[in-house]
């Protein structure tokens, strides 16, 4: 079992805590002049995304987490799993609903996502910040109204619903910020 001592702590290091893989965000050395030294770290649980604080005595060791982040292309969904492919090795992996979570509503075939693997198994999927998706359902467009004021809901090809300006029609391709779920603009030809 690989371990890290507190002296190896730094931002980005992957460690095990409470049975879950975590990533160190921030590491602070804390020590009274004549007393015990501590490492006070902020860590992100890579499965839940939750950020917690942990304190270690200097010199303590923690189990290393076998975590890999790789860019993978989304292929298809078989009803239960989302399948991704490593564009270099063509190796394919299947991610379950827990790993894909909210990313599912932005996943479009061929898009390259950041997949986090723990012991070779996907635990989270991050879609590109911006995706281009086709509108499949929305109220008829109001021609001439380019003000963008007001807006209306539109269902996209992935099933996601976003607010779009009134002039957007079915079959148009829109650009969406996946971090906020907001419409950014019309796709440029």
């Amino acid at each position: 079992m690989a371990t890290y001592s507190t002296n190896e702590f730094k931002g980005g290091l992957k460690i095990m805590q409470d049975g879950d893989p975590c990533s160190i965000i921030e590491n602070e050395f804390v020590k009274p002049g004549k007393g015990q030294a501590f490492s006070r770290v902020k860590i992100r649980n890579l499965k839940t995304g939750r950020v917690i604080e942990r304190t270690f005595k200097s010199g303590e060791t923690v189990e290393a987490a076998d975590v890999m982040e790789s860019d993978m292309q989304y292929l298809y969904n078989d009803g239960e799993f989302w399948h991704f492919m490593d564009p270099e090795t063509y190796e394919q992996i299947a991610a379950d609903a827990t790993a894909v979570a909210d990313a599912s509503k932005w996943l479009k075939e061929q898009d390259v996502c950041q997949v986090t693997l723990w012991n070779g198994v996907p635990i989270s999927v991050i879609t590109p910040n911006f995706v281009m998706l086709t509108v499949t359902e929305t109220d008829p467009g109001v021609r001439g109204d380019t003000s963008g004021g007001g807006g209306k809901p539109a269902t996209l090809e992935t099933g996601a619903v976003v607010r779009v300006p009134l002039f957007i029609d079915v079959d148009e391709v829109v650009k969406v910020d996946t971090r906020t779920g907001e419409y950014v603009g019309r796709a440029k030809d």
Partner: protein
Amino acid sequence: MRLSKLILEPANTSAVPKTDSIDNNDWRPAASLEVIKIRATLLARIRSFFEQKGVLEVDTPALSRFGCTDPAIESFRSGYRGPHSADGLPLYLHTSPEFFMKRLLAAGCGPIYQLAHVFRNGELGGKHNPEFMMLEWYRPGMDHHALMDEIDALLAFTLDGFFDYQPARRISYRRWFLEATGLDPWSDRVSAFRQFAEQQLASVPASMDDTELDPWLDLLVTHWLEPRLADQVLFVVDYPPSQAALARIREDSVAVAERFELFLNGVELANGFHELADAGQQCQRFKNENRLREQSGQTVVDYDEHLVAALQSGLPACSGVSIGFDRLVMLAAGLSELGAAIPFPFQRV
């Protein structure tokens, strides 16, 4: 010497190296020119303060045949090889100029101060640099309370125009803990401190057990008490005897070590003692510290026999204190990282 008023500009924070990396790829200083000038101003004022008070500036070796036995402080080790030592002579870089200065005091030099670079292995972070500058001074005939008055005066003089320093409130270590945690370090059990830490802190280190109280006190000081001292200036006085370090013990209703620390805006800035002058007790403390080192697998350190001999010959009753000079600069310049207060912090050496 007349000191010109400095115009304070925010330091070039992009130049401040991140403490979780020691990439040494930049030739430039990490401190801004403004901060380097503040260092010079504070140094000049400190020297002027002590000249007015008739305290003699001294300088003592950074290399010594003896190291620091305190299990919480690691000396850098070095060695001499050359004429008179063909086999090599192990040497330590000092972690404080204290022992040499006490040898001067025992030789009858009177009140002395020193601005010394000191070295502590394994200490690097937002408030730590392995090499730092210490202002250390000794006052024969003063107890620790009289010395605290002088610290107030020195800081008000030195920080004038940078920081509105008001004489610090004084609170006993015991009352400090009682007010902040409801726990008494002199009478409550270790398990009570553990319970408090487990309930109040985000987490407690897995390897801490109930055999010793001091690590729990250190945990609570750094994670619970210090963070509550933002915008405060506070002397914490009379420490538990287990944390006496080099302070004398006073037998009150309970035994207390006549040690104090100064916290300024939550930063530990000064540590001082009504100095232990008893050679036998000093020798015993060195040996105890080495025993603790042995138990925890740390290297045993050659303790300073010359200090013990100096105390045997007679150390005048005195108090002494050290102030972290770089932290003082950090506070004067309104910086949040120690690395920005030092021209070339560890990441740039």
